[in-house]
């Protein structure tokens, strides 16, 4: 078997085990060092995966594990998110009990994401998702001394286990109807499977499990509580890595395994997307806790991404991937700042961010860029992702009027989001009654994380062509039917 396809996964696992073991022999004073070692290791893996290390396309484990343009695209972003989260976590290396374990678990969750990017079989999909979810149960409740963290962990545990229960039951039905769990083999016989009610029920139940991961309506209940209660570094990883892993699998199932059924169900997915956007945007308006606000914002963003999945076209898939790329940079920039402020002030209320513009210009700039990009204002990455998504949705208005409704709702969502994101910006630069004006000292690792993400947000916003091209290749590799508009231009 071709083990070279799994090089990145094997190296990442070894790094995680290494960090865990090193903790046994290193003195407590060297704990901070371990965070730097883990971050450096992930940075080396990232350059390796993006550069020479990317293996040629192929499959391993009897077609279960696949390396293609799609998996390489997502692996780069997962490693990037892991790197930034590890850099952020150095900030709390002194306060977090069991810091080395936190680093090791973060890396293990990343391994789960790497496998999820390559999963081409329902069995591997389930195992990879569970590796991510079970690790996150621990990461969410890691500040054991804080009741909020434990409570968030228990809520995530119950709802996560419920979602995996649904998904496993769905996979059993899919296996029963198709007599295989491989995505390629299912794609080959999807026309006859589309007539089997057992298969369709199984598919719906599986989508419940994925809907939980991406926090789409009606499986979004956990997101605000867990985002608020978890340590800020974990929340950042949940909002980027875990959500992107859910979308990687959703795209592989929807566009790779059953593209015809996806096109048939586009109104269902579109409806879910519309409700998700409205729910996230409306609930975000009265929030005072910035972490909870990010939870609702994450729900709304899952809604936008679902619109791209519903478009079930090459441009829709490309838009989803490009949006996710910009979204990961943006959210990481935001949480790198939120993490520092929450650590210093022990509060995640908007008032804790008051006068941040005076207390630390770097942090204030980072968070402002993140909020402006999330609100979708040019020339930042968030604008470009939204633009591509809405363009892909608009291409379908001619065939189905429901896409017009989706477009209108998305525009309303953007307008609402400007209001609640700029509430945070206003608190930072135009505070009502800021009492504490002492400067906040920022560690080198956080400084690096913020600068890296802000540069990424600007770069993807100003010259997104390279990213869009890679995204297009990735989606085309999944046999997506080109949308009507693209066939039209190709005919000319």
């Amino acid at each position, binding site marked *: 078997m071709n083990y070279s396809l799994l090089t990145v996964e094997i190296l990442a696992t070894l790094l995680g085990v290494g960090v865990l073991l090193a903790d046994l022999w290193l003195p407590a004073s060297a704990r901070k060092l371990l965070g730097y070692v883990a971050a450096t290791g992930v940075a080396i893996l990232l350059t390796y995966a993006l550069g020479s290390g990317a293996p040629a396309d192929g499959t391993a484990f009897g077609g279960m594990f696949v390396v293609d343009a799609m998996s390489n695209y997502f692996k780069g972003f997962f490693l990037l998110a892991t790197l930034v989260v590890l850099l952020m976590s150095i900030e709390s290396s002194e306060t977090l009990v069991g810091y080395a374990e936190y680093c090791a678990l973060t890396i293990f969750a990343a391994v789960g994401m790497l496998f999820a990017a390559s999963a081409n079989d329902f069995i591997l999909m389930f*195992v990879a998702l*569970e590796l991510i979810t079970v690790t996150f149960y*621990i990461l969410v409740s890691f500040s054991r001394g804080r009741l909020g963290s434990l409570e968030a962990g228990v809520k995530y545990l119950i709802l996560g286990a419920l979602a*995996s229960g649904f998904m496993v*039951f769905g996979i059993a039905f899919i*296996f029963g109807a198709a007599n295989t769990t491989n995505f390629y083999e299912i794609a080959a016989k999807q026309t006859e499977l589309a007539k089997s009610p057992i298969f369709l029920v199984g598919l719906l139940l599986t989508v419940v499990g994925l809907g939980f991961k991406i926090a789409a309506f009606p499986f979004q209940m956990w997101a605000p509580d867990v985002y608020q209660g978890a340590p800020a570094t974990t929340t950042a990883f949940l909002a980027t890595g875990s959500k992107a892993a859910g979308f990687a699998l959703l795209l592989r199932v929807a566009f790779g395994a059953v593209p015809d059924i996806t096109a048939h169900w586009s109104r269902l997915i579109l409806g879910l997307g519309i409700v998700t956007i409205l729910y996230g945007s409306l609930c975000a308006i009265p929030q005072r806790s910035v972490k909870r606000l990010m939870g609702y914002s994450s729900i709304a963003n899952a809604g936008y991404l679902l619109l791209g999945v519903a478009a079930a076209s090459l441009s829709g898939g490309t838009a989803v991937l490009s949006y996710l790329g910009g979204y990961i940079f943006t959210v990481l920039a935001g949480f790198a700042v939120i993490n520092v402020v929450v650590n210093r002030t022990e509060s995640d209320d908007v008032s804790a961010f008051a006068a941040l513009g005076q207390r630390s210009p770097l942090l204030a700039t980072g968070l402002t860029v993140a909020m402006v990009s999330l609100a979708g204002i040019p020339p930042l990455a968030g604008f470009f992702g939204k633009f591509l998504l809405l363009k892909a949705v608009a291409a379908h208005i001619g065939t189905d009027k429901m896409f017009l409704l989706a477009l209108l709702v998305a525009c309303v969502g953007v307008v609402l989001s400007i209001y609640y994101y700029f509430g945070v910006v206003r608190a930072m630069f135009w505070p009502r009654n800021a009492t504490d004006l002492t400067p906040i000292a920022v560690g080198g690792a956080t400084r690096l994380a913020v600068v890296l993400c802000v540069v990424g947000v600007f770069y993807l916003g100003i010259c997104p062509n390279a990213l869009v091209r890679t995204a297009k290749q990735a989606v085309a590799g999944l046999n997506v039917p080109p949308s009507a508009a693209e066939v039209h231009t190709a005919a000319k």
Partner: protein
Amino acid sequence: MSDMIQAGLQHYLIVSVLLFSLGLFGVLARRNLIVIYMGLELMLNAANLALVAFSHFNANLNGQVMVFFIITVAAAEVAVGLALIVALYRKRSTAHVEDLTSLKY
């Protein structure tokens, strides 16, 4: 012996769906975290039963391989889950879902 009914695929599936519904009912109706957790395990085992039945009647062993993965993952999940519930109990002296109200807006 000849008048005994041979159990077919649909019989196994009916039991499996019943088990699943029972588990789901436990999760939705019960208020104790441990009992909710038992319901969740019941749901996973319903899927196991369905997989083994499909595997037998389709003459395809892949389903039984999946069952092993589910059992392993469920064991890991229980280990982490019970540890979490115990940690919460130590802090809060309760395992009831009504008492989990510290996160609000």
